[in-house]
C-alpha cells in the first residue's frame, strides 16, 4: 500500500555544491506528500545496517511535483557515506515530517535569519514567501566565507529577498561581525513588533541570541531546532529539547519549528 510518507527515493543528481556542501536531488513517487517549508525527511544513507538509523535533512527546494532538493554538509560517518552514493541509487525516505514554519499574516514583514548549515529550510520558506508576495529581509551569518551557503543558493536568496545581509566573523565576505550586529539594530526599528515575524534556522547558540533579540524587541520568532533522532515520528522520545514551561518537546513531532519562547534556552 503506497504511503504518503514512506518511499524509495531515487537519486537524480548528487554533486559537490561548493563551500563544503553537497546538493542531492531526489525523485519521489507522486504518492508522497510534498514538504512544507521547515519540514524534514529521514534518509537511510546506505543499504546496509551501518549506519543503523536514518538521518534527518531539511528540504531546500521542491523542484517539481516529484523531485526535491537537499543540501548537506559532511560532518560524520552518515553524511560521509551518503556523499558516496551515485545517481540511480535509491534511498529509503521517511517524510515529510514535523511541523514547519507558519506563514505570516498578510502585511507582515518576514525576517529570515540563518547561519552555518541552517539555510535549507529557510530557502524553501523564502521561495514560498516570495511566491505569496511577501517582502522578506534575509540575514545570513557565517564564521567565514567557506561556511556560507553555496553560491547558487546565495543568488537564489537574493532573488527571493527584498534585502539580503551577509556577515562573516572574519570579514571574508559581507560585513565583518556577528549576524546579530546587523540583525539586532534592524529589529529595534520602530513598529517591528507588530509588523514583523522572525524565522530562524542555524546552530543553537545563534538561535539563542536571535531569540533574545526577538524577545527584547517583542517580535514573534520561530526557530527550527536540531537534535539527534531515531524514529522521526514522535515514538522514541529521543529528540527532546527542554521546554521553558517544564518538561520536554520532541523536535520531530512538536517541532522542528518552535516558537522561540517555548524553548528553555
Amino acid at each position: 500500500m503506497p504511503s504518503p510518507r514512506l518511499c524509495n527515493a531515487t537519486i537524480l543528481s548528487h554533486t559537490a555544491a561548493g563551500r563544503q556542501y553537497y546538493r542531492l536531488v531526489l525523485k519521489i513517487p507522486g504518492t508522497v506528500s510534498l514538504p512544507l517549508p521547515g519540514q524534514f525527511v529521514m534518509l537511510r544513507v546506505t543499504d546496509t545496517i551501518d549506519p543503523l538509523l536514518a538521518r534527518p535533512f531539511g528540504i531546500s527546494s521542491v523542484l517539481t511535483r516529484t523531485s526535491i532538493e537537499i543540501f548537506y554538509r559532511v560532518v560524520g560517518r552518515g553524511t560521509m557515506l551518503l556523499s558516496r552514493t551515485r545517481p540511480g541509487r535509491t534511498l529509503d525516505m521517511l517524510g515529510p515530517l514535523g511541523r514547519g514554519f507558519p506563514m505570516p499574516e498578510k502585511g507582515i514583514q518576514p525576517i529570515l535569519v540563518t547561519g552555518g548549515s541552517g539555510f535549507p529550510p529557510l530557502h524553501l520558506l523564502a521561495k514560498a514567501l516570495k511566491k505569496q508576495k511577501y517582502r522578506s529581509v534575509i540575514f545570513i551569518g557565517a564564521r567565514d566565507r567557506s561556511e556560507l551557503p553555496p553560491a547558487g543558493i546565495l543568488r537564489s536568496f537574493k532573488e527571493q529577498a527584498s534585502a539580503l545581509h551577509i556577515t562573516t566573523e572574519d570579514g571574508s565576505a559581507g560585513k565583518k561581525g556577528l549576524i546579530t550586529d546587523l540583525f539586532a539594530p534592524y529589529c529595534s526599528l520602530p513598529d517591528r513588533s507588530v509588523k514583523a515575524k522572525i524565522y530562524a534556522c542555524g546552530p543553537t547558540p545563534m538561535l539563542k541570541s536571535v531569540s533574545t533579540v526577538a524577545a527584547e524587541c517583542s517580535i514573534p520568532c520561530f526557530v527550527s531546532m536540531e537534535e539527534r533522532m531515531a524514529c522521526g515520528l514522535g515514538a522514541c522520545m529521543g529528540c527532546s529539547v527542554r521546554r521553558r514551561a517544564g518538561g520536554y518537546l520532541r523536535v520531530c513531532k512538536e517541532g522542528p519549528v518552535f516558537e522561540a519562547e517555548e524553548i528553555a534556552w
Partner: protein
Amino acid sequence: MTGEKKKQPDLSVDCGGIKLKNPVLTASGTFGYGEEYAEFVDLNRLGGVIVKGISLNPLPGNPPPRIWETPSGMLNAIGLENPGVEVFLKERLPFLRTFDTAVIVNIFGYSPDEYVSVAERLDDAEGVSGIEVNISCPNVKAGGMVFGTDLQATSDLLGAVRKVTRLPLIAKLSPNVTDITRFGTAARDAGCDGLSLINTLLGMAIDVRTRKPRLANSTGGLSGPAIRPVAVRMVWQMAQSVSLPIIGMGGIVTAEDALEFILAGATAVAVGTANFVNPRATLEVLDGIEAFMTDQDIGSLRDLQGKVMSR
C-alpha cells in the same frame, strides 16, 4: 500429498493467557502508543502492541541528548518519559481499543507501591490484555534497575503486583545479570504468567573531542541488531530452565531474526529498534514468518517453538 495446495499456517499463540493471533508484538518504548505508526502499519494485523512504559504519575524523562547511535545499535536514556496512567487510560488506550489486537501495558515505578498502584488501576480498565512489568530499565537511577538485578527485590515486587491484578502478568527481565534464568524462576515463583527478554544492555559512549558522555545520563540502554546474539542466547537458556512462555526480543529486524528467537524457545517476539529503521518492520517480520512456514510446510508455530537442535 504432493500437488495439494499448501495450507495457511496457524500463527496464533497463547502467551501466558494472552491470546495473540500471531506472535509479532512491538517492544515497549519503540512504537509509542500505536498511533505514531498507525499510518504505516495496519495495527489489526499485529499480534499485539506493547506500549511505552507507564508510571503512576506523568514523568518528564531525562535531559537531552537522550540517544546515540552505535555499531548496529543505539544507546538510549529516555528516562521513561510518559504521561502517567490516567492520561494513558483516557487519551491513549481508547485509540488502541479500536483495533483487533492485544494491548499489553508496560509499567514501572520508583517504588513497589508505585508499581502496585499502576497495576491496580489497569486491572479495572477495559481493553488491556496484559501487563508487562519492567523491572529492568537501566535509565532510571532511583529504581527499576535495582529491582531487576536483585533476586529478592524481583520476587517481592512481582509478588506485590501479582496480588492486585487478575490480568496476565509478564515480567520484563534485565540482561545485565550473571544468570538470567534465576530471575525467570523468581518471576515464575512470584506468580507471573510469562517473561519478556531482553531489555537493553547497559552501555556508554564518549565524545572524545568534548570528553563528555554522548548521553546526558552518562550511560544508557543498548538495543538493536548488535545485541541479538546475547538475546537469543538468554531466551535459549531461559526456555530450557523455566517453563513460562517467553516474549523474545533484542535486535529483531527480519523474519529470520524472529525465527531464531522462536526456535530458541520464544512463544512470541517483539520488534523494537527496527521500527525506527523501517516503520513497517513489524509487518515485514510477520509476512516473512508466514512465508517461511508456508514454504517449509510448517502448519503451526508450535512446530517451531524451541525446536533448535542440540549439536
